[in-house]
């Protein structure tokens, strides 16, 4: 019988989200920043499934369904942008992509 509390799942979800957040802030490679964004999406997914389980409803699980779909679409578009960017600038380091800054 599972004895871990909702507390543990929400805490783990927050830790995962924080790790993804740090990844977005400290990395300079656009692809790794994308991976960190996915990590944050997965963290919110975990919280939704945990709440869904403890409230004995299906709504959280169905929302996770939608999040998976949107994440797949987002990755496809994002990686297409990265490829288009690389074609133009020959780099995907975000520190060198500052045409809009000046």
């Amino acid at each position: 019988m599972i004895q871990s509390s909702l507390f543990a799942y929400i805490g783990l979800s927050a830790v995962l989200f924080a790790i993804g957040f740090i990844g977005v802030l400290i990395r300079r490679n656009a692809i790794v920043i994308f991976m960190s964004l996915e990590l944050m999406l997965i963290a919110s997914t975990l919280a939704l499934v945990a709440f869904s389980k403890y409230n004995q409803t299906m709504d959280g699980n169905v929302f996770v369904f939608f999040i998976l779909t949107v994440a797949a679409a987002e990755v496809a578009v994002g990686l297409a942008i990265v490829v288009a960017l690389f074609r133009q600038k020959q780099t995907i380091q975000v520190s060198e992509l500052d045409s809009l800054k000046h």
Partner: protein
Amino acid sequence: MVNLMFIIFAGVTVLGALGAILNRNTVNAAMSLLVCLAGVAGLFIQLDAFLLAFLLILVYAGAVVALFLFIIMLLDVKGSLGGLNRSMGTVATLVAVALMIAGVAAFLRHANLPSVETPMSVGVGSSLKAYAELLFTTYLLPVEVVGFLLLSAMLGVIALSRKLS
């Protein structure tokens, strides 16, 4: 006995996530993300969301991480771990993460969450029928919207990947 499986899967998840953001080699980072996803799928199974665990492996590990690896190998770029040398960036990162952790901690302390989980009624989280019933009644409009989103994402990717004249 504390739930041993939760500890194992949580450890795998956190270690995979740390590997994904701290690895200098981008291919290794994608592989660490895969490990992290496997851990999350294990946690989903613990939460009786068998279909979602299966979909997570299928969609994320099968499609998303494969796409990441494909792009990484196509572009052949070096991952660099910069940013922490600038003091303002470091301070901003630390403050933001501390604020977020403090917010979640305050929520967990005051929210009066149930300490021991109630057993799930049979078939609520695991049956495909429950998903289908909600998807085709309450959430019918979001399903249509998500379908349209997928179509527009597909068209967007086609438009983006054309050769720029």
